[in-house]
Structures are given as C-alpha cells and as structure tokens.
C-alpha cells in the first residue's frame, strides 16, 4: 500500500552526472498512513505483546503455579481440620510461595534485563524515545500479570483447602486479606526485580542481587545477634525479611498480619522504581 515493491531503479540514476543534491527533487516525503498521537496505552499494548510472546514468561509462571498449587495441595492433604483453628485456609500456599517468589523475581528481572541483554532495548527506545513511558508500561503490565497469577493461585489454594477442611474443628478465619496481601507482596518483589534489572541491565547480576535482597536478611540475623552492638539490627532484619514477612501474612506468626512488612516493601520498591526512572533518562543505551 505504501512502500512500493523494490523496483529496479533506472540505471541512469546511478550514472547521473554531477549530483546536484542541493536541489534534490521532492525534498520531503509524506506517508499515507495517518500519524497518531502516541500515549501510554500504546506502550501498554506493546508490552503486553512482548510479555506474552516470550517463553520465559511461560516457564517462570508455569513453575510458579506448579509450586504454589502443587505445594498447596500437598500441604493441604497433609494437614487436618484442627490445624486451621488458628491458621487461614490459604496457609498451604505459603510453602509454595517461599519458592515461587523466586520465579516472579526472575520474570520481573527478565522483563527489562533481557532487552538489554539482547540489544532489543535500542530498538525499543528508537521506537519510543519516551523511555519513561516504556518503563511505566513494563511495570504496569508485569504487575498486573504477576498479581493476577499469584493472587489467583493463592485464592485457588484457599478455596481447595476450605473445601477439604471446613469441618467443625476449623475456625474458618477470614482469609480474603491473605490472598490480596500475599499476592501483593510477591508481585512487589517482582516489580523490585524489574527496577533492579533496569538499573543493573544484566540478567544474571540482577537476579543474584535480588536473591541477596530476599535471602540475606533471613540469614544474617543469626550472626548479627551474636554481638550486642548489632543485635537491634539483627532483630529488625529478622522481623522484616521477605520469608518472615510472608509467614506473617499467612498467619504463621501469631498475632501480626504482616501489614508493616508489606508497607516496607512498598517503600523499598517505590524507591527502586524512582531510582530506575532517574537513571533511565540519563544513561546511554
């Protein structure tokens, strides 16, 4: 319709004498395709196409679902009605989430770092020099996908468990909040991974950094507790590390419901996203 099929240009063109390029014919070209004003919606559609057209999405989310649903069913089958006197019915999803959060972190990192790794990012930023728009779309699309999958799988585990264990001994605690908070927590970890991936621009490096962020605060307190001077730090780390936060959200820690842990992650993620935005506009790609 627009680009004519490559026709052999007339031979005379090549041998045209004295190229008078100052007075070149037709000094501009106007495309017949109407030009639209681009906005975030275009970037969202583009990122949706991207995230669903690579295999890493399928793999990471597939393993996540396998871990959360499979692990949840296994735990659910091993427990008795009595266990749910002080635990919500979504508790069996907790075990799967401990491992499954790594999958979401990996996917989050890959959403940006794979573009840097393959060089696709140059093509992307050439197609949309408004880098902030692309990055915002990445975060929104990834968060929507991650939250839908994680909250959905937690909900499914909750429903299955409640159908298996709703005997008179179970207390039937309300568990709607755990679905939302659990899904939010692991999805935010993924968004944090995405921001870290955008800042480090290297898949393996960013995944390793994220594993450090998730795992170190749960290991370090053992050593920090030894010394009196670092004891408070160790206690805080123990209270707020990702594994303990998930345990609190799923009621494995008695009274607390993990609200402050979720807020801390919201803050950390927001800071990382702001940092990623700031670097994104300034750095060369």
């Amino acid at each position: 319709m627009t680009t004519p099929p490559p026709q052999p240009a007339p031979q005379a063109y090549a041998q045209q004498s004295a190229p008078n390029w100052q007075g070149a014919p037709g000094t501009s070209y106007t495309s017949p395709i109407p030009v639209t004003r681009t906005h975030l919606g275009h970037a969202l559609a583009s990122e949706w196409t991207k995230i669903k057209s690579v295999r890493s999405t399928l793999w990471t989310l597939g393993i996540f679902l396998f871990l959360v649903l499979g692990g949840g069913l296994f735990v659910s089958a091993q427990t008795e009605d009595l266990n749910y006197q002080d635990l919500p019915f979504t508790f069996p999803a907790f075990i799967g989430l401990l491992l499954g959060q790594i999958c979401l972190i990996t996917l989050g990192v890959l959403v940006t770092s794979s573009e840097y790794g393959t060089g696709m990012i140059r093509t992307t930023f050439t197609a949309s020099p408004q880098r902030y728009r692309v990055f915002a779309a990445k975060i929104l699309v990834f968060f929507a996908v991650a939250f839908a999958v994680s909250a959905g799988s937690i909900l499914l585990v909750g429903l299955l468990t409640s159908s298996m264990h709703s005997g008179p001994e179970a207390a039937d605690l309300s568990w709607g909040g755990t679905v939302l908070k659990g899904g939010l927590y692991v999805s935010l970890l993924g968004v944090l991974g995405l921001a870290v991936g955008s800042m480090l621009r290297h898949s393996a490096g960013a995944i390793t950094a994220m594993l450090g962020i998730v795992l170190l605060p749960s290991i370090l307190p053992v050593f920090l507790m030894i010394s009196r001077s670092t004891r408070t730090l160790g206690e805080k780390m123990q209270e707020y590390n990702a594994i303990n936060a998930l345990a609190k959200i799923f009621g494995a820690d008695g009274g607390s419901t993990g609200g402050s842990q979720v807020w801390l992650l919201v803050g950390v993620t927001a800071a990382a996203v702001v940092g990623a935005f700031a670097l994104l506009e300034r750095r060369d790609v």
Partner: protein
Amino acid sequence: MIEAVGLTKRYGAKTAVYNLSFQVRPGTVTGFLGPNGSGKSTTMRMILGLDQPTTGQVTIGGYPYRKLPNAPRQVGALLDAKAVHGGRHARNHLLCLAQLSGIPARRVDEVLGVVGLQDVAKKRSKGFSLGMGQRLGIAAALLGDPQVLLFDEPVNGLDPEGILWVRNLMKSLAAEGRTVFVSSHLMSEMALTAEHLIVIGRGQLLADMSVRDFISHNSADFARVRTPETEPQQREKLTAALTEAGGQVLPEQDGALRVMGLPLPRISDLAHGADVRLWELSPHQASLEEAYMRMTQGAVDYRSTVDQRAGLQQQLPPGAMPQQQFPAPGQGQPDWYAPPPPQQGGQPFAPPQAAPGGPNPYAAPPQPPAAPAAPAAPADLNKPEDPR
C-alpha cells in the same frame, strides 16, 4: 534532513566523536564511511537519541530525536540486526514495535512481505541467519513509513540477491524524497548506491562531498607500465624520460611502474623516443575503494599484522634454510591499495589543525612527490619487521 552541529562524544578519556558537523539531505542516498572504531555507530546512536552527545547537538527535521512527536513515523533505523529478542517470533517483534507507535497491525504483514520474510513470520528470530536478521531489521525501519531512514551496515550477511534488493530499495526510498543515510564498509556497494559521502576517521570529519568529487580528490588515475624484467637499465631510462616529461613515477612492488600525470599515448611516445620496449601499458581507473583507502589510511585504528606463528614453529634442523614467507597482499601492508599521500610524509594521523570546515588536508589532491618514495616505506605504521 539530519543536521549535526559540533557533535562530540567522550567515553571517559576516549573521544569517540569530535566536533562533527554535517547535513544529510533528502532525495539522495548519503553514504557514511569510516574505518572500524571511527565513530560511525556512535554517531548513529546519537542521531537516534540513544546516546547523549557530550557537546553539540543533532536534529532531525529541526527536532532532537527524543523531542520528535511519534518518532518512528518520521525516522526509521536499522542499527544492529541482532538487536532483537531471539525468543520472539518475527511477526510479534514487529507487532510490538508497531503498537508502540500506533501503527496498524496490517502494516506488519506488509513490511514482512516487502523484506520477503512472510514465510518465516512465525519463526523465532533466534534461528534466523544474519541475512534474515538484516531483513527483519530493515522491516522494522520501514514499519513507520518514515521520511528519514538510517541503516548501519544494511548489506552485512545478505546474499547477492539481497544486496541488489537493498541497493534498489535505498535508491527508490531516496527517489521518493526521503533522507537515506547508510553506513557500509563495502566500497563497491557504496559506489553504486550513494551519491553523497560523509567520511569520518577517529571521530572527525574527513570529507563531506559527492562520490564523484571524493574519488577525484583522493586518488588519481594512473597508468601501469612494465618494462622487460631482464633489462633493469631500461626501467631507469624510462623513469628518467617520464619524469622529465612532467609525469610522476612510482615503482610498484612487482617491478612495474605507476605513472601519473601523463596520458597513455604520451607514455608510449616517450618510451618509443627513449628506445625502451614496453611489456605492459595499461590504464588504471581509480575506484572509490582506493580513494577511501588513501584518505583513511592514517585513521585506521585496527590493522592486521602478519601472522608470524612465532614460537609455534618447529626448530629447523641445523643447516636447513628457513622457507621464505611473503605476506599475502594486504596483510600487514597498509599501503597495498595505494601509496600514502606523499605530502603527509607518512605522518601518523593528526587531528586536522585547520578549522573545521576549512580546507581538509586529506581532501587535497596528492601533490607530486619530491622523490619517488618506495611505496613499502611508510614510516608511521607499526609495520611488522620481517624477523629474518
């Protein structure tokens, strides 16, 4: 129209591009030439707003790239054929780019047809050959039907049919009034495609002129003359006669003479007058490649040396003569294509002292040498000494 003004890019201590100013006009194919590492790709990236210039600016149609409203509809670029996510199939790759700039999905199938990839549209681009990757990159550049097109090495890895296609595509795009800016190392290809040339070396502008001017400024047509090898004195005699008649004579490695400044019939007459027999008298038209080689000789960063296989050779038995090895043409011999411009005296490339835009020392036609310098004796180059 692309316009660069005083473009400079530094990476730490290394200056990749220095004070580059040029214009790329619509309606013609403009070639962008330079040795490896001379800053071509950096310049392309700065045009596309991917890299921020240290100083200076580059605009397209009056706007910096990142300020263009809906940039892909005005500028299309092929930077690197491998700049795709290999796990995504070709159609989805183009689709996500089309969606980003609000281009209808129908257009994706159109450009896939234009570049001839319609049959592999649903194949993952990881399995693409280099040529197929180039076609995909060209498809991405054409997607927005833009008025400005940039291609970095578009014919890399293409088959002869593909090269012909790209050549005709560039010309037809330019004929429609678009601005087409192409970098390439294939001189023969550039000579056929481009009408105008921008040549850079070590990040600085060496030439900005039409192909025709470029060739005539940077190389001279010459005649190759060969006298009977059995009688070296005839060669001396002829050299003297030709120099006396106002020609420039340079000896070639194989014993022939390179004569500039005299038409062929005159050379023949002079030889006849000096009673010298000729074994060869052939005209030699300068090509773009020779002109380019001559101009960029001093600005080449990466030069091959002779592979000596030192230390890997077996010890020769005492008394045995080592086999004489001659370097292959071109290898470690920067002056193979053309002798160094004599007026430079083999000086290593120095930043032009003249003000930018002033007379370019490298664009000047070669001056007659004071004495016929042996072509194999440029003092500048780290030419490997023969170990024997």
